[in-house]
């Protein structure tokens, strides 16, 4: 079920109305049932994957807490392997086999190529949001192992931790310390929270259906067949994609956080105006925060963090970002995207540590320049994220940097292109000066909410465009 659908609107009304009419026991059951329905709307049978993951990690949590010494580690490893196993099977099997077939078919004298997953199990598709709920489940067992979180005894509540519908398929990737205690509490009806949650949902929806899906019309057209378009078209399309992916993903996060807030739950912030960052490291502190802190806490710091030799720090940084790229998708494009961001960070760190003279003196103008440079670097990397193949990505970059003609070819009307630029300007202005919409004044809330809903209806594009991050 997509947040930008009528189906979800009705679903949300039903669940929220029932939620506030039930006691604590009824609420967790209702939310669990609703989350199952929400997930099964994509492909019902895949609920079994979630069920297995939940049972394994629930038991693992209890056993880790109960045991001491090496046994705890063994149980943790089993739990992590079972999670990663699902991920590897569904997400990385084809990538691995494809590369083996390409690289070693002649070398190993295989009689025929190794079969792809679809050939072994016809009709199989990647379960939606697999990387998200797998990472959330993993963070639970790791935290129990570290002793930061007591094992959850209530099976229903633990299931809800993994399956809570607002953040089930595209995050934020939560930590047990934040949400498990909230599931145990009874949240009274709080009009302030409801107003704030609804407004955040409306803003998220605006970003998704008014901005992201409109920009997607131009982006999809240009990226579908890049060789048919001029460098200018590809440049504008890439610029649009930079905002499309932000509005698409942060819009989803806003709707998820808002939907949870209406019911009294506080989920972690996932975006803080990332395109206003003055450096790549600042960008990663503002973009997909729940994932970047996950990698920081569970990969970068265990590898030694900043407390190891300088060379090792750079290697760790590169490793974390390549893994992050791979987390997004099983393709060389994502690996290159991660590698590129890792390289940016390593180069920035080298400059800071060894060539501080190259660092610009902080003045208002240099701050603006830093924001622009950071934005351009991020935009360049998005080409790999969006292009269908590495060759397409290199072709697009080449054409953008060395354009041969300047004609803008698009399916959008001139008025739509101007409107798209206006929306981007509006977004930047809003993020810069009004990052949070104040809803404390009820009349102001009604007016703003009504305006937002009207604009969403009038200028929204509703053709069931899936969220980009669902595929991860």
């Amino acid at each position, binding site marked *: *079920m*997509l947040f930008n*659908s*009528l*189906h979800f609107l*009705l*679903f949300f*009304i*039903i669940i929220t*109305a*029932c939620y*506030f*009419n039930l006691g604590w026991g009824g609420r967790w059951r209702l939310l669990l049932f609703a989350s199952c*329905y929400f997930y*099964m*709307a*994509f492909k*019902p049978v895949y609920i079994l994957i979630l069920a297995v993951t939940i049972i394994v990690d629930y038991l693992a949590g209890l056993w880790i807490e109960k045991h001491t010494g090496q046994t705890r580690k063994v149980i943790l490893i089993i739990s992590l392997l079972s999670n990663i196993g699902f991920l590897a099977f569904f997400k990385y099997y084809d990538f691995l086999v494809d590369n083996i077939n390409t690289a070693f078919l002649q070398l190993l004298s295989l009689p025929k190529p190794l079969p792809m997953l679809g050939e072994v199990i016809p009709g199989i598709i990647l379960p939606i949001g697999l990387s998200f709920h797998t990472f959330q489940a993993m963070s639970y067992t790791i935290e129990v192992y570290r002793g930061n979180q007591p094992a959850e005894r209530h099976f229903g509540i633990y299931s809800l931790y993994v399956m809570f519908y607002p953040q089930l398929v595209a995050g934020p990737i939560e930590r047990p310390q934040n949400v498990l205690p909230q599931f145990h509490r009874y949240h009274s009806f709080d009009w302030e929270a409801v107003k704030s949650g609804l407004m955040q949902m409306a803003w998220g929806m605006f970003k998704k259906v008014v901005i992201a899906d409109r920009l997607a019309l131009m982006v999809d*057209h240009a990226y579908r067949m890049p060789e048919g378009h001029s460098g200018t078209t590809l440049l504008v399309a890439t610029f649009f994609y930079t905002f499309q992916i932000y509005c698409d993903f942060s819009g989803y996060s806003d709707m998820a956080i808002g939907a949870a807030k209406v019911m009294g739950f506080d989920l972690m912030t996932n975006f803080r105006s990332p395109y206003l960052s003055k450096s790549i490291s600042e960008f990663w502190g503002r973009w997909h925060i729940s994932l970047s802190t996950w990698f920081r806490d569970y990969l970068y710091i265990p590898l030694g963090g900043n407390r190891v030799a300088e060379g090792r720090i750079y290697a760790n940084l590169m490793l974390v970002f390549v893994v992050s790229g791979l987390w997004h998708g099983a393709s060389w494009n994502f690996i290159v995207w991660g590698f590129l961001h890792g390289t940016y960070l390593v180069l920035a760190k080298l400059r800071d540590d060894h060539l501080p003279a190259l660092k610009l003196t902080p003045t208002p103008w240099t701050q603006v320049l830093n924001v622009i440079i950071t934005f351009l670097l991020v935009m360049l990397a998005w080409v790999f994220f969006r292009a269908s193949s590495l060759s397409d990505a290199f072709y697009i970059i080449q054409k953008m940097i060395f354009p041969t003609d300047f004609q803008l070819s698009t*399916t959008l*009307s*001139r*008025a*739509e292109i101007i*409107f798209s630029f206006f929306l981007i300007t509006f977004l930047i202005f809003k993020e810069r000066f009004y990052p949070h919409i104040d809803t404390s004044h009820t009349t102001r809330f009604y007016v703003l909410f009504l305006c937002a809903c009207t604009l969403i*209806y*009038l*200028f929204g594009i509703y053709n*069931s465009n899936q969220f980009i991050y669902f595929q991860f």
Partner: protein
Amino acid sequence: MVLRFLSILVAGIALGFIIIANSDALFYAWTNSRFFPSPNRYGDLYNLTNLRTFKERDYATQSVLTPLDFPRHKRQADVHLYLFGDSFIDRIPLESYCAGQTEFERVGVSSREITLNPNQVNILIIENVERGIADRFSNYDYFNTYIENAGYYTATTRKRFKNNPSVNLGIWGDFGGHAVEERLQLLLGNYGPFLLLKEFKAWVNLWLLNKVDGNNVLSSDKKYLFYQNEASRTVGYTSSFYPIPDTVVTQFVNNMDKVYRHYRQMGFDEVYFAIIPNKATILAPNEGYNRLIPRIMKESAGRFQMIDMYSKLKNTIDYYHVGDGHWNKKGMLMWVNEVNNLTRKVSRKALPPVAGTDQRLQTNDTTALRVTTFRK
């Protein structure tokens, strides 16, 4: 207390809609009930775009032929007419044709086993709208559409080819999937007040952004509305305005020829092709028509026969609906006349005229034939 009651009531109504949308049986029961107006009651293009200018209020009366509209004709009892076509002719009652017997199968939807009567003149007309040519006669599709899943097949040809599987309706259909969203939009958005909202949105988008919903296309003078696939300059060969190389036209004609020979070998005395021009071809001829129909007709000369609807329609302006992508009653009547002229031409002899509808005709056969009445 009142708030609690209201919230439960709203939730109950919303739940009702979700249950109906998730169930094939309930959904079809609801949409076939008298409480559910047809979504295309003002024309399919209006339904897609919600532009008020193209809301055709008399669409219902202009889109079907009634017995009063039928041409009076002599019935050619020795001709057995088989029609294999699309939405342009599927609502024309079979009794309006003058052949002794007339059958119709919808391309891509239905098929039927037949036994050709050697005592009759068996003719087959394969009708297609212009925008369907690229899809149905490409190298990839023609075999599947016209031969493997043929509209008509004999016991012999059935052994060689598969046929369309039947569709079963279950209580729980596409649980939660894409169909549910489409059904909810249909269930909720098809009534008066919602149509007003949709019209307002369509007007704002056209006025401010020059955008027509669903990427459908307005003619440059904004007088006519066309489907995207027949009038956009970027969608490909389905469009009247997309350049089509000669090699592609040749490919279409070659595949039509293969289809022609397939049916002739099945035993049909003659097979005719008919291409109904796109609405855009007729109503916006100066916007760069690629001349697909004239080119096909030229290239097919001497290989198979075609019914020329393009020449008849090309200077007309009122043979297509305002709010729909199909032709109206006048267009249908023109088609019926063309087919009847052809039928008379191929008939070996003519029987005396028979008036009225639902009549029984005495034929050379020993059994009386009931002429087929309205078909869906």
